[in-house]
């Protein structure tokens, strides 16, 4: 128990966060690339054709994991936002602000792949159905957090606290927005996967496997980019601290101290 508490406190301090996560970067990247290549190759070339949609269904191996990530990262950003707001933790600040562009990117990928898939399936790139609309609003929420942060660029800590407030508001509002948008009749197909094994979901394991692998790959990619961005964020905001100088030029710093 004591070790966990110690670990938690260590993660909260920028220098030890940097030191600890430095060891995680390579394995995360490796896992993301390996799983991503495996999932894409199996999904795009070897998984069986869909009896109804033919080969064009294969975009779900990108679309669905990206859609999951767009919400997952929003949740992560919101939780980091709460930690930023309540405890003013610098590391939480870094994690929150590092999550925003990644989440926005996954949201944009979801929208784009959805549009590309919609053209052959629905005959239109865009339709104002519930999921597309709420995904678009999700993108706006990400842009709002980015916007408020960049507007206060002269004071990054204040910017981060205001951005955390926006993130928290978004987190509270997201379910309301989501369900109000669902109010409309939807032409989007039902969920592809349900944990209870509903009749409408994917049944075939050889289709499901690459999808789950891709979901894992995007998670590891997120962790990798998140840590890398959070490290950079901390180094930028703490650029005058000694630990950053040690990291940037280990030899130069030793000369100064000796």
């Amino acid at each position: 128990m004591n070790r966990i508490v110690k670990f938690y406190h260590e993660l909260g301090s920028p220098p030890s966060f940097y030191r600890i996560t430095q060891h995680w970067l390579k394995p995360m990247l490796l896992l993301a690339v390996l799983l991503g290549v495996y999932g894409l190759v199996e999904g795009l070339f070897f998984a069986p054709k869909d009896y109804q949609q033919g080969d064009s269904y294969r975009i779900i191996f990108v679309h669905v994991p990206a859609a999951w990530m767009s919400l997952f990262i929003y949740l992560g950003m919101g939780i980091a936002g709460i930690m930023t707001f309540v405890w003013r933790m610098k590391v939480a600040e870094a994690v929150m602000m590092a999550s925003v562009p990644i989440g926005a990117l996954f949201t944009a990928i979801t929208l784009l792949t959805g549009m590309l898939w919609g053209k052959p399936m629905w005959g239109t790139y865009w339709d104002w159905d519930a999921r597309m609309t709420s995904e678009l609003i999700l993108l706006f929420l990400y842009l709002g957090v980015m916007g408020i942060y960049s507007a206060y660029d002269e004071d990054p800590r204040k910017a981060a606290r205001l951005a955390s407030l926006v993130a928290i508001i978004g987190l509270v509002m997201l379910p309301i927005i989501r369900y109000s948008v669902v109010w409309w009749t939807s032409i989007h197909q039902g969920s592809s996967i349900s944990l209870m094994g509903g009749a409408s979901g994917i049944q075939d394991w050889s289709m499901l496997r690459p999808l789950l692998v891709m979901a894992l790959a995007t998670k590891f990619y997120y962790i990798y980019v998140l840590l890398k961005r959070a490290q950079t964020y901390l180094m930028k905001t703490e650029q005058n601290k000694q630990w950053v100088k040690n990291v940037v030029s280990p030899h130069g710093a030793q000369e100064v101290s000796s």
Partner: protein
Amino acid sequence: MRFWTLLRRDVLVAWRKKSGLYQPLVFQLLVVTMFPLGLGAGAQTLAKISPAVVWILALLSTLITFEHLFKDDYEDGSMDLYYLSDMSLPMAVLAKAMAHWITTGIPVILFAPIIGMLLHLPNQSFGILLLSLALATPIFSLLGAVGSALTMNLRNGGMLISVLVLPLMSPVLIFGAGAVLESTLGNSAQGHLLMLLGCLVLAISLAPVTTAAAIRINLE
């Protein structure tokens, strides 16, 4: 007591300034003229889109008033006094949002039937239009207070307010315009109106606290 004093002061300031009172209405009138020009003046086309247009105009014309909700007080230092006085900040926010609603929301509600008439909104829908706007304009003011507090010391925060506030307003628009649309089709709008009422309760309870938090961060 202080609540009412602040409310009266804000209403009085807006009343003496006048521009805040009629700006949204002039904006609505200008934009509503553009619709027949762009769509063709066919009464049936206009009637079909009228619930949405009346609602979006009410929303957008309120949006342009948000920028100065807290900015003027922030710039002349009154905001620091609210902060330092022993009045609770969320209550001050609520008073200011209420004053904003009285000076912007009520004129917008009263003006909506005129816009509706210009767009040939079916007769049976006017009651629901007024009711839905009466429920929704306080939400506009409260959410606008949040956006305005977040951007109060930015030189041009207008665009940012739209980015922050409009996504949050989408449920209100869905239920509000939905209610009017249902009534034009002869259906009951009760469900939509109840959802609006729910949004209003949520906004009254959460928005002042959030706004106060944003003000505290900004004054630090």
